[in-house]
């Protein structure tokens, strides 16, 4: 008898197959139990390790023993000339089939229910802390089938001129803002619909991915002094047209806002969406009569969404231009406040000067339009960063009440609560709402990762961060969060270095990323590399606080007290009032 046949006779192959399938199933169970029971991370690794160790043991036992009608017997006690007990092989076959069926059921379940809704679904998964009211979260964050919902797909540019694409995108953006004023309807944000530009996906598929029941699509053509817009509203379930219209007007800001207002009212009618008198008034209002101001505003929004330092600086200039052209353009004042706050925060220069600009712009926006939710959102953010979450809460709540479809308001409110650790679970729920409105938003996805990190759900946080990087590799901020995570939470300097170098390629003069590199090299004990990066920081801005701070950490590592103190003395006047924020 050959060795192969002997292996077959002793059921070694069957045991091997059965063991692999069973081990895989056990690993899935362990993967579920670790977060659910808040077991330590090593538990899962331990299970995997034991299963690997058990494999040769199982093969050895299969070789050495046999199941017989008299029980398990040692091979040496069995007559080798007699065929192996036929029943035992059959039992093993049944067991393997049963395990394979269980694995198949699990696989189908996982692929059907685990990956449906991207980031919005991410927030509802099972790793929420035990104290989280997961039932509420799931209801609020998951697919909200009872609520009217719409996604406005990017409009086709039907002009022959490529530069009209920007105009087309701007109209699309403004229309989204107008439709979002219908409080009873969920409106998917711009960042999440933009990836469907030129898509070949069917309407029902898009609707499923974005969690909506209706889709608006259309095209725009700018022709001399005329603008032609056609739109159609589609029922995402039946794929049937609910309403369609064609507009041919003279090109002016007033006419563009009038068309947007007509489309929004028509959608509300077609879907029987409730519109309060205040909402109707806001929908019919004209934000600006200046086409140039409107275009500058649109460019500013687009630049700010990238969260790239240089782009955010350019965004401040665009918004300044918009308010210069039309000082009564309230949303552009919000843009001034948003962009100045974000730019100075990201560039670590936030302080009295930037707060003065932000406060002034918020005041002007609210003086023009006291019901502008977007203005209350930035008011909340600015208050939070200076005074803490409690003082900011009223402004955030006001923002959400006035503009329930403004994902950023939910996001910033959630972030403020994340600092107030007692309300971490609320923060995660609010971020889920933000993700529902803007499921493809990188910044919201990243904030969700940070929320998971804050409650110690590290594997969940890492997956969330990596999701964002995968969805939007050009979003350098996601790399920043990953770098922080790998450094502080999981002690992976090699991973931190990999992502810090990637971030630097995308945003080479960002002092935050360069500072990360200094810290990573210092942590690795590579002082020369840290000093080299510091030199690059000096070339960007020698007087910047972050550059001096990096110098400080380098000299602390060098055990050079005199130089350290000299750097500290230079740095101290640059530290803002509350450096802990």
């Amino acid at each position, binding site marked *: 008898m050959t060795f192969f046949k002997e292996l077959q006779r002793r059921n070694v192959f069957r045991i091997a197959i059965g063991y692999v399938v069973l081990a895989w199933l056990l690993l899935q169970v362990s993967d579920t139990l670790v977060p659910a029971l*808040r077991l*330590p*991370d*090593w538990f899962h690794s331990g299970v995997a390790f034991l299963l690997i160790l058990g494999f040769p043991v199982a093969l050895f036992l299969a070789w050495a023993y046999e199941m017989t009608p008299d029980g398990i017997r040692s091979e040496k006690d069995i007559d080798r000339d007699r065929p192996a007990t036929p029943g035992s092989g059959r039992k093993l076959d049944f067991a393997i089939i049963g395990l394979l069926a269980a694995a198949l059921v699990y696989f189908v379940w996982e692929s059907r229910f685990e990956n449906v809704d991207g980031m919005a679904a991410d927030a509802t998964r099972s790793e929420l*802390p035990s104290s989280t009211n997961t039932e509420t979260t799931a209801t609020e964050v998951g697919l909200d089938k009872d609520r009217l919902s719409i996604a406005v797909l990017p409009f086709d540019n039907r002009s022959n001129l490529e530069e009209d694409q920007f105009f087309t995108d701007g109209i699309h953006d403004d229309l989204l803002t107008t439709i979002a004023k219908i409080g009873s309807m969920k409106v998917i944000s711009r960042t999440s619909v933009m990836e469907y530009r030129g898509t070949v996906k069917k309407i029902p598929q898009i609707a499923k991915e974005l969690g909506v029941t209706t889709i608006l699509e259309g095209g725009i053509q700018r022709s001399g002094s005329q603008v032609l817009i056609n739109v159609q509203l589609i029922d995402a379930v039946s794929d049937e047209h609910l309403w369609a219209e064609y507009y041919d007007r003279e090109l002016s800001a007033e006419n563009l806002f009038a068309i947007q207002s007509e489309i929004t009212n028509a959608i509300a009618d077609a879907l029987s969406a409730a519109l309060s008198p205040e909402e109707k008034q806001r929908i019919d209002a004209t934000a600006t009569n200046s086409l140039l101001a409107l275009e500058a505003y649109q460019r500013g929004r687009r630049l700010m969404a990238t969260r790239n330092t240089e782009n955010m600086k350019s965004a401040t200039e665009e918004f300044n231009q918009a308010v210069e052209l039309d000082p009564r353009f309230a949303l552009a004042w919000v843009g001034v406040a948003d962009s100045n706050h974000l730019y100075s925060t990201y560039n670590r220069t936030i302080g009295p000067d930037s707060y003065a600009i932000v406060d002034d712009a918020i005041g002007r926006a609210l003086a023009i339009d006291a019901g502008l939710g977007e203005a209350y959102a930035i008011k909340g953010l600015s208050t939070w960063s200076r005074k*803490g*979450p409690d003082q900011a809460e009223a402004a955030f709540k006001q923002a959400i009440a006035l503009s329930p479809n403004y994902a950023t308001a939910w996001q910033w409110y959630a972030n403020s609560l994340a*600092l*107030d*650790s*007692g309300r*971490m679970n609320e923060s995660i729920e609010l971020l889920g709402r933000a993700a529902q409105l803007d499921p493809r938003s990188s910044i919201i996805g990243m904030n969700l990762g940070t929320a998971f990190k*804050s*409650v*110690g759900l*590290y594997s969940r946080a890492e997956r969330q961060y990596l999701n964002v990087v995968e969805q939007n590799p050009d979003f350098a901020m996601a790399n920043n969060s990953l770098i922080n995570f790998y*450094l*502080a*939470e*999981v*002690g*992976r*300097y*090699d991973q931190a*270095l*990999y992502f810090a*170098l990637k971030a630097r390629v995308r945003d080479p003069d960002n002092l935050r990323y360069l500072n990360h590199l200094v810290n990573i090299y210092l*942590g*690795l*004990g590579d002082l020369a590399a840290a000093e080299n990066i510091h030199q690059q920081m000096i070339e960007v801005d020698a007087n910047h606080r972050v550059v001096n*701070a990096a110098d*400080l*950490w380098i000299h*602390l*590592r060098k055990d050079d*007290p005199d130089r*350290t*103190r000299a750097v*500290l003395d230079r*740095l*101290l006047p640059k*530290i803002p009032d*509350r*450096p*802990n924020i």
Partner: protein
Amino acid sequence: MYAGFVELLLGDLDRAKTLFQSATPDWLDSNNRDYTYSMQYFGCMFSWVLINTGDEEKGRQLLQTNTAFLDETLSARTEHVDVHKPEICYLTSGDTEKALQSIEKQLAHNHLEDWDIYHKLPMYDLIRNLPRFLAAVEERERIISEQRKIIENMNHEGEL
């Protein structure tokens, strides 16, 4: 607060005290604790400074507030309290056993950032020469060395 931390490292307790005080004037306001929840170790550094500069009562009060927040409030929210270096608080109160446990837990959780700098703080004198502390530091260095090798390989493969 980082400036106060640096002055404490440099050994100028008076300057450290002034800087900690000016960074957060409401240190002793218990309503402020959650707001600075991730900065408990600065609070305990400030406690150490207060205790060692004649403000013992205020220092003990601040230490007690910070330690209670770490042990009772924060630990109910996450099992990773050790990422906040609570041993600074335990060492300030003289509890070397809890401090060593905290450091060992950081090792187990891979919270390895900035050990070299923080361990220069004066409160670590209590454990600096203890075998358990030295073993933890050595193990951390071994983990970092492994990562240096990974980085070398990544460099070699052109991945960085």
